[in-house]
């Protein structure tokens, strides 16, 4: 589903962010991306979204080199990738329902689709009764569930999450993780960047660790701390 072939990325100002990364992520996998601050996790996700292009190497998604995509095709690539961020990125003047519906409307989905899909996804994230609330009236955990609903409402093949639990307390983190797992079980590939040690340790999923742009670990049933795992 996702393949990095000797990918390096240095930002325009000369900051090296990723160095010679090669890895394969299968369809339906759940991968944690861990590493210290500044190790290149967000850059990794931005490359997958083609918000940035690698200086060296290729990135393949569903068998296609995304670097070859013409610019006008990029939006169509992004329709297959859902995104969740630490800061939720909801529209404050739209209700929960409208926030989720917006993601379908702006890619031209007909109203009938919006009216059938949105309630269904809100049901999945357990926010049916908050449909008409504004994001400001929700707790952080609830807001993040809206963000997950928005990312998943179009049934993308890949879900990227950049520290989705970074602003949440353990209980809310737990519910977001349960949600991501559930999404993962539908066959969606999930890549999640995180600092949350306890969470990674408990989940026992594949862990990819970055250190100053280099991949220093890729472990199938990994834990957060490098000292506990088997290094590459």
């Amino acid at each position, binding site marked *: 589903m996702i393949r990095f072939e000797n990918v390096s990325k240095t930002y325009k100002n000369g900051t090296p962010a990723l160095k010679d990364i090669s890895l394969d992520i299968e369809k339906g996998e759940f991968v944690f991306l861990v590493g210290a601050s500044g190790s290149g996790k967000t850059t990794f996700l931005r490359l997958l979204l083609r918000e940035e292009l690698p200086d060296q190497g290729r990135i393949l998604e569903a068998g296609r080199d995304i670097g070859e995509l013409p610019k006008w095709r990029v939006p169509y690539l992004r329709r297959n990738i859902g995104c969740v961020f630490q800061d939720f990125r909801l529209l404050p003047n739209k209700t929960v329902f409208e926030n989720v519906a917006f*993601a379908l*409307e702006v890619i031209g989905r007909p109203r009938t689709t919006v009216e059938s899909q949105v309630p269904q996804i809100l049901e999945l994230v357990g926010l049916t009764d908050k449909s008409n609330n504004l994001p400001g009236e929700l707790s952080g955990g609830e807001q993040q569930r809206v963000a997950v609903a928005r990312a998943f409402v179009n049934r993308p093949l890949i879900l990227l999450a950049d520290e989705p639990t970074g602003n949440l307390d353990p209980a809310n983190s737990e519910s977001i993780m349960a949600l991501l797992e559930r999404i993962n079980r539908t066959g969606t590939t999930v890549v999640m960047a995180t600092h949350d040690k306890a969470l990674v340790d408990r989940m026992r999923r594949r862990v990819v660790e970055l250190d100053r742009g280099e991949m220093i670990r890729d472990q199938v049933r990994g834990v957060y701390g490098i000292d506990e795992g088997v290094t590459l």
Partner: protein
Amino acid sequence: MRVYLRYAVRETFSNLWRNRMMTIAAVLTVAVSLSLVGSALLLKQSAAQASAQWQQGTRVTIWMQPTATTAEIANVQSQLANLPIVKRCEFFTQQQDYNEAIKILPPSESKVLTVAAMPPSFRCVPTVPANAFTVEATFSNQPGVYQVTAPEQQIREMNHAIRVLQIVFLALAGVLLLSATVLILNTIRMAIFARRREVSVMKLVGATNWFIRIPYITEGFIQGLLGSAVAIGAVTALHTWYPLHNEFQLSMSALLGTNAVVLIVGVLIGSVGSAIAIRRFLDV
């Protein structure tokens, strides 16, 4: 498609409403500058029409000295008869000129006139208006000739005055059009800024570039359109109630043509303003 139309219309009008003060400023600036453009164009057309009408009846008048001898008069007359550039001439005696002057001049002035003081004259029509000058040059210094007058000079002066006025109008209009474009650009920029969250979410979920851009383009387009609508109203009103050209009625088609130009320019600056704003501030 229908979904998109509904979305684009809703976005466009909510942007216009949200920035209504800026919108009004932009629309008014467009309107004022386009009114100037329209007036300049009408002025040009009426000037062209006026000089055409004047030139059709262009006459050269050769005024003889009141004391000119019969021989001198006969000499001029025979030369005129042999000049191919003169279509026809009519000789006015001192009495005829006196009668004409009495009719034209107010009594206070005509009282002092006497038949003997009047110059006899030849009223000639040249084959083409431009030949009036040649006639003037040929006869000005001949014996017994007092003065040769051709309305050509007046036409030139009028045309010159209109041209100057027109340049002033167009220069002003140019400056105002530029500021109108900048104002439109700025309203679009503010609209984009107010919607930056929406835009970033749209990019994230895979909205196409045109889907994101079109509401802003139509916003500029509508501002230009409204501005030209006001300008068309102003130009038409001016034309109807205050013609710049008292005696020379402009045709309906001239007015329609001018309004078409005003409309096109308005829509164009609206679109250009928003296109620049989108290129500079909407990074998609």
